[in-house]
């Protein structure tokens, strides 16, 4: 780690960014190639999204997206320089050019997308405020929680979202509002509340810390929109398109049934859509400044979106998050990538 130089670098680059922004147009890809690695901003440690494992390797859905972009550019998923960032540092790091891509469970909102110099290219995880209840209660939807006691943290939008939700439906509930999240979870664990509410990804990571995780269930329903997605600097359309279509290729690979294990086979037997995705027909890769087999490299090195999801946050992980809204549209989810043609 080199915090002082990194901080200095951020400051200097932040100053430079104001003058060099116009010159930086369409240069990001060249910069990345010259640097011979993608500089990717990730969370300092959020299990399932980006966190170093016991061997110091960054793992998680957000980290995998960094690898996918590196594979598309370099045909090598390891040409990523992971730069852990706090919530406060993340936008400055991107604006100043310290990182090329921000893949750090960041909610896509209008003000961030328009007034803070960022461009969001899509959604990698549809998050939202959810509820955790004890299995024994037999509750399956939020509406059934009418009359229940709900533990939550003060100073968050969660409090207001719950109030809005129940007020809109004319239902009542008993809020139990704590200053700190730890006490809210502890009180829920001791039976003070029937339900505990926060963002769904937070619910899952709190659940594995409970006394008996399997006795608690996170409801599928969410009551607020928190789309988490990768962002790039505004002003470099070519780079934004490259990152965006890498995400779409990641999703389309799952849609077309192309996986890490069968990608080499499908090269021979694929349908026209698969052939376009893997670069055997058309010049789609060249149009975004890459080689034609960019998407093939993504799937071969990282797998498709669904594989990465299950490996990091889904059934293959300790978090065991249900796909829910993160299924493909054809399975009842929200992920819908435009076709490659």
């Amino acid at each position, binding site marked *: 780690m080199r915090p002082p130089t990194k901080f200095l670098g951020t400051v200097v680059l932040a100053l430079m960014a104001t003058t060099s922004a116009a010159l930086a147009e369409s240069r990001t890809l060249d910069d990345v190639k010259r640097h011979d690695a993608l500089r990717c901003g990730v969370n300092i440690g959020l299990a399932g999204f980006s966190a170093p494992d016991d061997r110091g390797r960054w793992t998680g859905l957000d980290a995998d997206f960094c690898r996918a972009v590196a594979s598309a550019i370099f045909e090598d998923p390891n040409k990523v320089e992971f730069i852990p960032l706090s919530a406060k540092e993340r936008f400055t790091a991107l604006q100043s050019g310290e990182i090329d891509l921000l893949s750090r469970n960041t909610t896509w909102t209008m003000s961030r997308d328009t007034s803070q110099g960022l461009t969001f290219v899509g959604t990698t995880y549809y998050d939202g405020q959810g509820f955790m209840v004890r299995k024994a209660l037999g509750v399956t939807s939020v509406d059934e929680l009418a009359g229940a*006691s709900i533990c939550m943290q*003060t100073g968050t939008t969660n409090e207001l979202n719950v*109030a*809005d939700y129940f007020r809109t439906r004319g239902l009542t509930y008993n809020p139990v*509002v*704590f*200053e700190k999240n730890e006490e809210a979870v502890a009180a829920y664990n001791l039976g003070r509340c029937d339900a505990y509410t926060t963002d769904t990804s937070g619910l899952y990571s709190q659940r594995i810390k409970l006394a008996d995780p399997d006795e608690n269930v996170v409801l599928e329903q969410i009551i607020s929109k928190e789309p988490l997605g990768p962002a790039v600097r505004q002003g470099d359309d070519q780079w934004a398109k490259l990152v965006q279509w890498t995400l779409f290729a990641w999703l389309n690979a799952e849609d077309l049934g192309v996986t890490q294990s069968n990608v080499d086979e499908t090269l021979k037997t694929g349908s026209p859509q698969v052939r376009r995705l893997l670069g055997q027909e058309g010049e789609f890769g060249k149009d975004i400044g890459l080689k034609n087999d960019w998407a093939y490299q993504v799937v071969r090195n990282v797998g498709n979106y669904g594989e990465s999801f299950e490996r990091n946050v889904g059934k293959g992980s300790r978090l065991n998050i249900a796909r829910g809204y993160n299924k493909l549209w054809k399975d009842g989810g929200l992920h819908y990538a435009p076709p490659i043609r």
Partner: protein
Amino acid sequence: MASAGTEGTRSKLSYDWLYDPKTRGIIFQIALLAGVAALFIEIALNTAANLKAQNIATGFGFLERTSGFDIAQTLVPYSSTSTYAQVFWVGLTNTLLVAVLGIVLATILGFVIGLARLSDNWLAARLATTYVEIVRNVPLLLQLLAWYFVLLVVLPSGQNPLRLPFGIAINDRGIYLPAPIWEPGFGAVLIAAIAGIAGAVAIGIWAKRKRLATGQQVPAFWYALAAIVAPPLLVFLALGAPLSFADPHQGRFNLEGGIVLLPELLALLLGLTLYTAAFIAEIVRSGIQAVPRGQKEAAAALGLRPWQVQRLVVIPQAMRVIIPPLTNQFLNLTKNSSLAVAIAYPDLVSVFAGTVLNQTNQAVEVILITMGVYLGLSLLTALLMNWFNARMALVER
């Protein structure tokens, strides 16, 4: 002095004026006052300018906006469609509830423990000392959290409440009491009760006059008790008991209906009472020990019984020592009640300086109002206690 002789004569007049201690005192005080005033004006102007530059709304208009959130315990009418101003009243009454109950309970417990510390009974004295030493020396926040989580562990679960007679039920969601339903005619019972209390006061005055005039003791306490209890009871029975109770019943998650004492309120009261009582006990002990031993012996020599010695001779004198520091403890308890948010009790700091501040972002206004409330409460308590102290003080002739 030597230099004053040579140069000082030329401007003797101005030197006199400048070196006059009284004049200098006034000049320095005016300068200090102006400096402090300038500092505060600068802070106020600077704050206003910065808020404007950052495009942060100012003013108290937000108080009229809809709050949009629910509160677990409301002593005044409130729903999520109420205004922020009503949130303020809910928070204030919740704070007052816990402060007043806490002060009463801590005072009673503190006096008992303070007397126990001076007891001749070895066990009682040691237990009281141990209690005071442990409770005074553990941070209050930790005690509150401990009591809260102990309560949650000890109380029966929400689905299996402990049922007591008279429709009372206890679980980890609170203590549920039957809610009284006033039926027509209950007003007459209340009027009878008020008349009874007035009668009791009259009996007290009459008994005192009689004692002072003739020296005869009247069992005034029993007469007064009869005056308070009998009239409302007779009216109540005569009107055919115009009162019924709504028992709490089991809903899907919680007991519903009835009056609920939240576990957060119980834990906060328990924590504040036990903590403050330890300090009050020490104040009571020191107050009683401050009464000269001769007073006690003289009272005993006059033939007063031990409890009469305490009630008529020792405690009235001890009170003069006790009241001023006791006032401090009452103020402390009120201010400490702002730790409530840690265990989810919806007091003023939690709902107003917490949720409302977060929703409106008008930190300056919200914090100013909240500070004003605590200042007001403290000054009011101090005023009442000073009045009480003046009444108890030694009358010097």
